[in-house]
């Protein structure tokens, strides 16, 4: 594999995200770079839409290459990578036919004998997959797999960055995640102090309180801390 070329391609993709870009153009450039730098013969990206994969980009629009992508409706490497959220590598006719009887005949018929599919991961799930195909039955190295995943990650960012949340929205989300976590820890402290509980038991009590009051955990945590402010458990406070 051409490491510095691959790195360069990744950098170009990341640079294009900061400009106002067109997603299709960015993805097309990315899959073309994959083909050149990863020493594969074809590459394509499929994205999940209501459970099924749709091809969104292909390194070439030759009929054999398009078949590689379009044939993956019910089974195939990208389908597996998408569903299992892990990279899938299968090399050689026998292995291909054993794993995907229908898809493998299309793939072999189009002249390809090795495939590596990497999931497009976003927030603990997969939104699609990047497939890299070789005509020769040559395995992918550990480094190939790492870089393929980096390309897949970059494709994910390209796809999601256009409709992604604004900076303000991200800043607010970050703030709310942090504030929620802080409130939950503080509420555990309040409950531990008031009821002589361990932090683990205090957490259980906090959770059941939230359930009983039909409140989100963090909202309930804020309430618990506010209650402690109104009525500290110390009754013989020194005069203010």
């Amino acid at each position, binding site marked *: 594999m051409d490491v510095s070329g691959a790195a360069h391609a990744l*950098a170009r993709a990341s640079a294009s995200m900061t400009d106002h870009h067109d997603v299709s153009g960015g993805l097309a450039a990315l899959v073309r770079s994959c083909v050149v730098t990863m020493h594969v013969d074809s590459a394509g990206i499929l994205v999940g839409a209501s459970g099924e994969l749709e091809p969104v980009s292909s390194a070439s629009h030759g009929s054999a290459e398009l078949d590689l992508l379009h044939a993956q409706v019910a089974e195939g490497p990208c389908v597996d990578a998408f569903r299992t959220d892990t990279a899938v590598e299968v090399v050689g006719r026998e292995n291909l036919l054993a794993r995907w009887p229908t898809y493998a005949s299309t793939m072999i018929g189009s002249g390809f004998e090795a495939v590596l599919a990497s999931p497009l991961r976003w927030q603990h799930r997969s939104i699609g997959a990047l497939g890299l195909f070789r005509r020769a039955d040559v395995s992918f190295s550990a480094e190939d797999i790492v870089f393929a995943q980096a390309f897949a990650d970059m494709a994910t960012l390209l796809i999601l960055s256009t409709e992604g949340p604004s900076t303000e929205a991200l800043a607010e989300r970050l703030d709310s995640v*942090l504030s929620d976590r802080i409130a939950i820890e*503080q509420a555990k402290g309040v409950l*531990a102090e008031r009821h002589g509980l361990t932090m683990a038991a205090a957490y259980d009590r906090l959770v059941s309180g939230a359930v009983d009051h039909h409140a989100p955990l963090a909202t309930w945590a804020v309430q618990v801390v506010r209650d402690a402010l109104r009525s500290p458990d110390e009754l013989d406070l020194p005069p203010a």
Partner: protein
Amino acid sequence: MDVSHEHLLAQLAVTLVNLRDTTSLPLRLCQAARTLLDAEGTAMTLSTLDGIRLVVAATDDLASALEDVQDLTGEGPSFAALDSGVLEVAHLGRGSDADEPWPLMRARSSRLGFMGALLAIPLKLDDQVMGVLSARRSDGPTSTVEQVGSFLGTALTAALLQDAELGLDPLAHPSSWPAQAEIHQATGMVVAQVGVLPEDAMSLLRGHAFAQDTTLADVAGQVIAQQISFRHFTVEGD
């Protein structure tokens, strides 16, 4: 050595993929940053809009302790980088140079036994500073630190924000919620003990740590272990 953006990106990709799934996201980012900065330890601090700082990951105890010292004294490169949005460096263990900023923080941290540079790299999204990555290096900053730091500040923020829970979901990564959780638990206990606002409760903890010449984490631990109670606590002069 010229460090190209693409070279860094590739290094980051390789480091991150190799660390995938072994630990929480913030810790993975800290580990990746440690590698890229050739640092001995790193810590990531995020900040809420009302200015509460939270150490979300640290590669080792000393990295946490260096953050704790800054929380305690309210000064240091982390605070400065959060304000300035640019790389800040504290040179620790150089004796008392009057020209050096953050004297309180520097005096306190000298007791931790670390001599070298403490770098604070702002974690930025567009122009908004979301937090700070701290890195320590006994040999001082590398010549490429500006370049690597500015790349890391952007790349780590982008990576961090891919995860809606910022890797802080306690169910997904039970060990990811750091020791700092204890500081907020202790704050809650003090709220229940004296009925003050959480920020005032935290000031009480901080003041106590300062007066006792110890760390915030240590005082929090003592409150939780019920070795300290603020029920009858009065501040001298009240």
